[in-house]
């Protein structure tokens, strides 16, 4: 067998093993180990495994992953999510569908201090869903808004997916963060417009489309400002410090986590057992991501040995598809994978193969990254493996609202994301403008 044939066989077997339920990291390592064995020698295969395990993660940059996860989880327990929602609820009390818009807006602001969508989904399920249902919104819409707008968490910096992309594409993480800002804001605005439009033209979907000015809150401009101080300070600390050059992305993660810890302590939201649970949870989330990264480093070295990426690049550029044809096929594959596996795995599996193609077409790699992240995030909301939807479901703890209802409620948001994705593909310049400044 030639190298390319072995590589192709490895990818097919790996995808099959993953589909049937083998742990994704194990599937990546096993097929890579066996292919290198076949292609070269068992001794080299073992050496490459040892290098992946002992060297691939030995990079200061990977510190960002546990640190931003820790920050996201600390922020979730600190209660600043509720405060942000309270303020937007009060600001938008006269607007039709205002509570839905408030959820999106609060999510967008919250996204600027968290890099994982579960943090947003679980916080706002508890804060926003009961409030919306109390005001007569349909449960379907209430959960759909929360699931839909939780994707903003991984688009607006800091973002776990942007970090992973930056590592794989060898782009600066700081730049990838910048590239997510404008698309994130545009997506949030698109969500808001859609909610207001639905409130006007399709009230049966939303339910309580009347304003929420009867909420009887005693919010004033002063109290609202006070409530926004901690989150604004944290955003300023992390993003300000990062872009003023005071610290590196990894340090921004550490400083942000420490800041979130201080906020949670000052607000008395943290005791020892809770802090311990946050730390253990941080470990589990980051270790499963880092183990995937480790396994994927072996996989991409195996692919490079087989020469598969080069021959696929040749085949695709020779097909006469053109860059847009390639992008179309790529996005379809990512959306299909999004129905089966999680977002980090999709990027780790696809990018070693498609990045050389994108480079061969002379595409802007930062722009390609934004497109990848948005396409991958659609998978967070589509059945049957929409992680955000399942997070909302488990945080909700209400048997009356089924998984199916949440998927239905989130569907308009999927359409909205597809629209923004189309805009990104057609007009590349606006997404990378900040990153290229």
């Amino acid at each position, binding site marked *: 067998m030639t190298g390319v044939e072995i590589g192709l066989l490895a990818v097919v077997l790996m995808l099959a093993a993953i589909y049937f339920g*083998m742990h994704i990291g194990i599937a990546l390592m096993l097929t890579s180990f066996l292919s290198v064995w076949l292609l070269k020698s068992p001794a080299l295969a073992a050496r490459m495994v040892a290098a992946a395990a002992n060297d691939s993660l030995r990079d200061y940059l990977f510190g960002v992953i546990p640190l931003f996860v820790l920050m996201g989880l600390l922020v979730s327990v600190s209660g600043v999510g509720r405060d942000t929602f309270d303020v937007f609820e009060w600001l938008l009390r006269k607007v039709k569908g205002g509570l839905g818009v408030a959820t999106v807006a609060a999510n967008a602001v919250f996204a600027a201090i968290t890099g994982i969508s579960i943090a947003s989904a679980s916080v706002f399920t508890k804060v926003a869903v009961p409030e919306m249902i109390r005001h007569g919104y349909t449960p379907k819409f209430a959960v759909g808004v929360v699931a839909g707008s939780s994707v903003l968490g991984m688009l607006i910096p800091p973002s776990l997916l942007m970090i992973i992309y930056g590592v794989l594409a060898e782009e600066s993480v700081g730049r990838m963060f910048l590239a997510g800002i404008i698309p994130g804001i545009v997506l949030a605005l698109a969500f808001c417009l859609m909610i207001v439009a639905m409130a006007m033209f399709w009230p049966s979907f939303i339910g309580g489309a009347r304003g929420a000015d009867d909420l009887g809150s005693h919010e004033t401009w002063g109290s609202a400002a006070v409530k926004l101080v901690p989150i604004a300070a944290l955003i300023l600390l992390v993003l300000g410090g990062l872009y003023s050059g005071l610290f590196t992305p990894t340090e921004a993660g550490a400083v942000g986590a420490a800041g979130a810890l201080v906020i949670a302590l000052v607000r008395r939201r943290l005791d020892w057992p809770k802090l311990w649970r946050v730390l253990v949870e941080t470990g589990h989330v980051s270790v499963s991501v880092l183990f995937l990264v480790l396994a994927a480093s072996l996989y991409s070295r195996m692919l490079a040995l087989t020469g598969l990426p080069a021959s696929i690049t040749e085949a695709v550029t020779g097909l006469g598809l053109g860059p847009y044809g390639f992008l179309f096929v790529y996005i379809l594959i990512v959306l299909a994978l999004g129905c089966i596996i999680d977002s980090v795995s999709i990027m780790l599996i696809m990018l070693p193969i498609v990045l050389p193609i994108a480079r061969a077409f002379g595409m802007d790699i930062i722009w390609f990254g934004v497109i990848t992240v948005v396409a991958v995030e659609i998978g967070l909301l589509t059945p049957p493996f929409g992680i955000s939807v399942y997070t909302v479901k488990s945080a909700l703890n209400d048997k009356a609202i089924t998984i199916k209802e949440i998927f239905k409620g989130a569907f308009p948001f999927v359409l909205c994301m597809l629209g923004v994705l189309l805009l990104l593909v057609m007009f590349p310049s606006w997404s990378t403008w900040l990153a290229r400044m």
Partner: protein
Amino acid sequence: MSYESSTDLESPTEPRRGPDSAFGYVVDGMNGLGSVLIFAVMALMVCDVLMRDFFNAPIDGVAEMVAISIIAIVFLQLGSTLRHGRMSRADLFIDGFTLRHPRPGNLIHVLFSLAGAFVCGVVFYATWPRFLKAWTDNEFYGVQGVFTMPTWPVQLIVLAGCAVTAMQYLLHAVWHLRKAAASPSNAPGVVR
């Protein structure tokens, strides 16, 4: 099951349930060390930023220490991540299939667990000579004269992490094998 299936951090703490075996204590103990290490990395970096920006006196070797800690964290917590069902996988096919056909479903689980144990074994086998070499040759990370630290402790952690994770995979395999032996090939009660 995936890295994102969050546990509920908001609700009040449940009464602590300890691990149910000596091996469970080993897994949870290593996991605890990893959690402490994450916190230590955060504290170390914040100190470094403060020292550097306010006192113009950065701490030597922070970048190396953080880089090494990442490997240590992964292998300290890998066993626990597996034990608590948090390794990433696609449960689209396997969960429903195991429910409908318990025996073949559990046998697939056995096969996949053995694959996991095998991969951990390969990592262990491949890391062993590195550990010996690091031990005998006094290998170190960092730049001599500025900051150095021996490499063998990290490789020992990698070895220990692999051993514990392989053991956990074998326990999974045994558990599913028992389930397979105890169940009929089709579940008569479950109709989909």
